[in-house]
């Protein structure tokens, strides 16, 4: 008798071998919760990544020059001189003097609306952009150049100010990735427990199928399929739940109107990645089920 790759021809017959009810139980709901949490964690991770990337792109070549002088006439003179000097410096692709109106708007939340009389002296600001990322050497060179024409100038890289923010964003992003990993592990553990329980419950049936010539692969496929159906159902529910939460959170954060927050908005590629989470979940659940069953069956003759 030739040994052919064994299979159950009828998918229906295969599914019947282990009653679906004995395998599923709360499994779809566990998977739904895991997938929902994973979608939220992954969305957070992607948003943090987008924020970091966007801010980094914007700030990498940016410098700010402050002219700190209480005398408004002298401040304006030095600001104009510094602006001319910057525009003439090789490597500086753009230099703009921030208007007084813009400065007033920026400091208004802290100092209130400016008044004509007795206004608090505020430094003049020049926003400049370099061709290359800002280096310490470049900053030093610019300081030396500006010292002669604008002694009151203070030159800083914009990225330096936001370093702690970048650091926090990076930590949050890694935390999200770790959370996705932990949830994947928890999903695999839940599937493992469910399959082990189902193996115990269906031990008699499995022994009979073995004695009738059934192979480990055939039996594993039955469990794999059952878990696959559970995971697909749970994954769809979990994805829907997760997306609702992500959309609500997105709406709330979007309402803040802060530049850094809005730069974390998810792109179409991010949404596709989120939609793939249940697919990966189904794959992970089926793989775990198969490995668990094969390993358990190897202990039987």
């Amino acid at each position, binding site marked *: 008798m030739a040994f052919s790759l064994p299979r159950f021809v009828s998918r229906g017959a295969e599914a019947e071998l282990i009653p679906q009810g004995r395998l599923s139980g709360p499994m779809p709901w566990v998977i739904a919760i895991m997938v929902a949490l994973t979608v939220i964690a992954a969305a957070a991770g992607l948003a943090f990544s987008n924020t970091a990337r966007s801010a980094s792109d914007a700030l990498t070549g940016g410098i700010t020059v402050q002219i700190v002088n209480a005398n408004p006439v002298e401040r304006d003179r030095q600001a104009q001189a510094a602006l001319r000097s910057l525009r003439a410096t090789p490597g500086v692709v753009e230099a703009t003097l921030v208007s007084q109106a813009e400065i007033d708007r920026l400091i208004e939340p802290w100092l209130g609306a400016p008044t004509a009389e007795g206004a608090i002296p505020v430094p003049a600001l020049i926003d400049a952009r370099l061709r290359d990322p800002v280096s310490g050497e470049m900053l030093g060179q610019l300081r030396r150049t500006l010292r002669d024409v604008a002694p009151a100038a203070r030159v800083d890289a914009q990225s330096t100010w936001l370093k702690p923010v970048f650091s926090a964003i990076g930590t949050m992003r890694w935390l999200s990735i770790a959370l996705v990993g932990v949830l994947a592990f928890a999903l695999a553990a839940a599937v493992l427990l469910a399959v082990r329980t189902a193996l115990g419950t269906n031990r008699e*049936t499995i022994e009979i199928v073995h004695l009738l*010539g059934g192979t480990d692969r055939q039996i594993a496929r039955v469990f794999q399929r059952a878990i696959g159906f559970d995971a697909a159902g749970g994954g769809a529910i979990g994805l829907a739940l997760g997306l609702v939460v992500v959309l609500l959170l997105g709406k709330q954060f979007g309402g803040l109107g802060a530049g850094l927050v809005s730069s974390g908005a998810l792109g179409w590629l991010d949404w596709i990645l989120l939609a793939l989470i249940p697919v990966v979940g189904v794959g992970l659940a089926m793989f775990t089920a198969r490995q668990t069953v094969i390993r358990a069956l190897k202990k039987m003759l």
Partner: protein
Amino acid sequence: MSNAAEGEIVQFDNVGLRYGTDREVLSNVSFTLFPGGFYFLTGASGAGKTSLLKLLYLAQRPSRGAIRMFGSDAITLPRERLPALRRRIGVVFQEFRLVSHLSAFDNVALPLRVAGVAEREITKPVADMLEWVGLADRMHALPAQLSGGEQQRVAIARAVIHRPEMLVADEPTGNVDPDMAVKLLRLFEALNRLGTTVVVATHDVHLLKRVPDSLIMRLDKGRLSDPTGALRYPPRVPRPKGEAR
């Protein structure tokens, strides 16, 4: 196996079996089964009949000794190759071992499905087989809805549906009325005439007399006595069916 007879289907050589650290339930069991033979395995309760059958249908590996089945060494055979051997054997378990959530039809169809037979080629043979064992009108019943005798007939139908090369039956007539017992025995004989080697464990001495060409193996406290001398291993001469009696 230089001294093995040509064409044997099963060969036990000095086989011993113990469960855990208990004493051996089978000791120094040696015999040969030939293709097309009809064998009865008798012995008192606890003599080791079921244990010997478990070795025959590859549910158990022996503690010692050598077993060859269908030309393969069943002791060293890789686990992955056991299913192929098992598909050549039909088993009627003493306690039936029907799959409780499957109907009589699906239980009988199980060996065919396991072997990958197309669904369209399953329906008729299974229905015919169930009709033959008198369960045509019960094919959709679950095992729990069947009487002991009906369950036993389903178990027998399941064991023979795929025309195995060897049929191993553990007390197959224990739960059926005498008429059905005779009918089932006739089925076994019919299969045997078609070339299936049949091994029936029974303590029903009346059954032994109903198959004139059968050979008898008697187990006594885990040791095989061979009243006819026909089963001894190494065999003195290859004995085709019926020659021993």
